[in-house]
């Protein structure tokens, strides 16, 4: 597997300019002769499809939802970072770059991250021009806030719905191109396989989810922007439909999968209320600016109403353990601390399966200090959301929170041009691995999705088409028939699953294995155990699962779900292999064997300063490891400390 990252030479601040000059161009009159297949219509896919069409390429865009506007980017709340330095507080491209590499715990590629920081400023310009209603000051300029512990105010936001507004901006740009006939949008269409011709990505097999028909699409390049794989845990803040299938099928066709064990857990989510729970809801972590996190000091008190527990009997564990950062320690530290107190038996709230997995986030002091109105102005919409879901008012009783899976930093390996190890297959947004290392900073996901789609792929894909592209291919090529036959065989197998056990049952059980052994904290013994349990569960799935309905040629949501869960049941193993191999703690990957006496993560830079890229070897076979070493020439390797 060739892992040449193709990082341009020269000083880091000149690399992208130099590279853009060196990239070969496609003649404007020839662009219309190329068809680009874009899978996914979120921030990355939607912006890429629109921009490529503006340039003159013919674009076919696919999404499994009923409209591109439903992509899960829509649910991002907090904001989007950009090194505009509008607040004159010392921000710069270099500082955003530095913070992102450091925040990622030194497991990302410097050159990619620098470019991300560079183009961040263009994103804001573009979105404002599209009519995105960002928050503004009374003088009419854009408002910013500090987010996720950043020392500068570089986050742009649109109330608590920034993802929605940015996505609707990209959706509008996409709609304009659909109206012009340059993008053909295929909704309720799921990509089920990648077609390779002479080793290059030249097509797709998709399923029309309404008619059930398989379709072949030939193109000159493929752009995959299909999001993350957090739903391998069943319970996550992802949308119910979010899945790994498109990425995983590409992996099976030879694309390297990088750092799959890097998953992010968000500390402020609404806890599970029962065994039927179908998903978790995140609340902006800005809540930690004013809320105080605590549990009872005594295990006898965990079932009591919080109001009955006197001040002296409350354990403000973050404030006590991290006196200088207190409740504002980073996401991973706050999450692990919550898990620890709950595992030790101090968790509060409803008992589900014999455990109480929640801690209090208490606003009583803030309300006393600043008044109810001030707190309502800051968090009113979040308090309403919490009340709607939990039935309790945070003005009266402390919120209950618990960490939940939120984002996956790992993804398909890409080079500087965002091309995977399969020539012609480009991967954008959360689906690739490149920019966030082992931990993503708040407000950086929206930035990366739009950077990749608006400002990177439109340049780099032209170079591929102008230099490596190997001539016309149509869907009559035998590779299409062959791949379609393989897809059909798998679907037939799925639709014939006629046991008694619903698909969700398997998904839930897989989620429990992954959360227990490959979740917030991992150890070798647990991961080895998971690697035993997953194949057994997979076998049971193929023996006992039930897919309602008998035909693959009709709308069947359970068949769709079964295909995705079957892929998660294979993919989960790679995650565990990766977590087991990475014998260090870094960012979202916390190996219990590698921690300080105070429970802080211990990185092992001498041995693990690389990206782990896994190559498919067959179902149930250990994947083959390849390494991309990371060099840190600009950001000094340091240990994070929040004491």
């Amino acid at each position, binding site marked *: 597997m060739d892992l040449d990252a193709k990082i341009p030479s020269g000083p880091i601040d000149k690399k992208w300019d130099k590279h853009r000059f060196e990239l070969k161009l496609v003649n404007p009159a020839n662009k219309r002769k190329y068809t680009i297949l874009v899978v996914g219509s979120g921030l990355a896919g939607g*912006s890429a499809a629109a*921009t490529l069409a*503006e340039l003159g390429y013919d674009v076919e865009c696919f999404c499994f*939802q*009923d*409209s591109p*506007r*439903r992509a*899960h980017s*829509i*649910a991002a709340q907090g904001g989007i970072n950009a090194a*505009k330095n509008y607040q004159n507080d010392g921000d710069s491209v270099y500082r955003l770059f530095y913070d992102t590499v450091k925040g990622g715990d030194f497991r990302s590629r410097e050159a990619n991250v620098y470019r991300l920081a560079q183009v961040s400023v*263009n994103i*804001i*310009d*573009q*979105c*404002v*021009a*599209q*009519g995105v*209603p*960002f*928050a*503004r*000051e*009374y*003088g*009419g300029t854009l408002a910013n806030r500090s987010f996720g512990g950043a020392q500068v105010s570089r986050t742009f936001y*649109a109330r608590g*719905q920034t993802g*929605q507004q940015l996505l609707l901006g990209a959706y*509008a*740009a996409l*709609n*304009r191109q659909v*109206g012009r006939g340059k993008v053909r*949008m295929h*909704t309720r269409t799921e990509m089920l396989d990648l077609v390779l011709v002479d080793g290059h990505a030249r097509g797709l097999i998709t399923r029309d989810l*309404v008619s059930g028909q398989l379709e072949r699409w030939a193109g000159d390049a493929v752009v995959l922007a299909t999001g993350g794989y957090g739903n391998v845990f069943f319970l996550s803040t992802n*949308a*119910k*439909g979010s899945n790994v299938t498109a990425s995983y099928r590409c992996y099976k066709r030879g694309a390297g999968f990088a750092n799959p064990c890097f998953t992010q857990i968000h500390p402020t989510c609404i806890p599970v209320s*029962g065994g*039927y729970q*179908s*998903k978790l*809801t995140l609340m902006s972590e800005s809540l930690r600016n004013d809320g105080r996190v605590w549990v009872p000091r005594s295990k006898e008190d965990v079932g009591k109403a919080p109001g009955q527990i006197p001040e002296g009997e409350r354990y403000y564990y973050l404030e006590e353990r991290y006196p200088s950062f207190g409740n504002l320690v980073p996401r991973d530290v706050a999450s692990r601390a919550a898990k620890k107190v709950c595992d030790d038996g101090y968790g509060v709230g409803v008992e589900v399966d014999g455990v109480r997995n929640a801690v209090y986030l208490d606003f009583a002091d803030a309300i006393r200090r600043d008044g109810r109105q001030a707190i309502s102005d800051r968090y009113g919409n979040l308090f309403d*959301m919490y009340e709607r*879901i939990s*039935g309790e008012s945070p003005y009266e009783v402390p919120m209950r929170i618990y960490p939940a899976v939120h984002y996956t930093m790992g993804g398909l390996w890409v080079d500087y041009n965002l091309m995977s190890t399969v020539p012609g297959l480009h991967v954008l947004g959360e689906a690739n691995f490149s920019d966030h290392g082992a931990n993503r900073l708040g407000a950086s996901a929206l930035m990366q999705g739009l950077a990749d789609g608006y400002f990177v792929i439109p340049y780099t894909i032209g170079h591929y088409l102008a230099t490596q592209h190997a001539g016309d291919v149509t869907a009559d090529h035998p590779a299409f028939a062959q791949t379609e036959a393989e897809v059909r065989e798998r679907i037939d197998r799925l639709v014939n699953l006629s046991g*008694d056990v*619903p698909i*969700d*049952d398997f998904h839930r059980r897989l989620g429990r294995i992954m959360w227990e052994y490959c979740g917030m904290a991992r150890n070798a013994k647990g991961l080895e155990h998971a690697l035993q349990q997953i194949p057994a569960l997979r076998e049971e799935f193929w023996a006992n699962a*039930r897919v*309602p309905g008998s035909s693959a040629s*009709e709308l069947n*949501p*359970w068949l769709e779900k079964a295909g995705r869960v079957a892929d998660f049941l294979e993919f989960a193993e790679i995650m565990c292999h990766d977590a087991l191999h990475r014998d260090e703690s870094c960012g979202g990957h916390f190996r219990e064997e590698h921690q300080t006496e105070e429970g802080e993560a211990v990185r092992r830079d001498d041995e693990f300063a690389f990206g782990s890229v896994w190559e498919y070897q067959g179902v149930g076979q250990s994947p083959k490891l390849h390494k991309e070493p990371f060099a840190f020439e600009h950001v000094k390797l340091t240990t994070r400390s929040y004491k």
Partner: protein
Amino acid sequence: MKVKFKIWRQKNGAPSGEFKTYDVEVAEEMSFLEAIDVLNEQLIRNHDKYPEGPVAFDHDCREGICGMCSMVIDGVPHGPRPGTTTCQLHMREFTRRGFRDGDTITVEPFRAKAFPVLRDLMVDRGSFDRIQHAGGFISVGTGSAPDANAIPIGKADADQAFDYAACIGCGACVAACPNASAMLFVGAKVSHLSVLPQGQVERSGRALKMISAMDGEGFGGCTNHQECEAVCPKEISTDAIITLNRELMRAAVQAR
């Protein structure tokens, strides 16, 4: 809670369907969709007794923002709680409103000529996208934008634009309207862009093109029932329709 769900069942591609009733035990803490999940699990496990299979319904984010969920619950799109999508509605809301064990909750798809039923509770809302294709955008190509702070926009205007831009495109407004009109949906987009300086250049054309696409899709016109505003999960005001009508008038005058 012991619930009798009376649910619309319609086969793939069938011209119509029928109601079927199912008894199911759910918890107050469940969201409405989780209650349907529990029902479906029951229908799958007892497949011999229920040859019609589980109930198909649209859903995705389950946090009130993607706009995918689309059920009419006891005659009201998204159910009894104002400002709330189906996925964020919880069963305790029914208890709060006097639900007793054994009571019936009726569930139907969003019904409108322009939203054909695909199966059970799933409808095709592609018509909404096609209205947006006609003009729901500002024509600015990537790369041609001036600095974001080059054009100041007053806070009040920015906030108002946001209020309209908050539309999630679910279609509850259409399902609630006796005319199955999409005026609130179209008005929200037209108002969002007409408030902002960036949207001025294409202002008149946009309103005309979008309303013409709306008519072409088979949506009705507005006759001031205001049911749309009452059921909108994002509480978008019918001021959007007033603005839309004003924009149409303005465009008509300009065209002369």
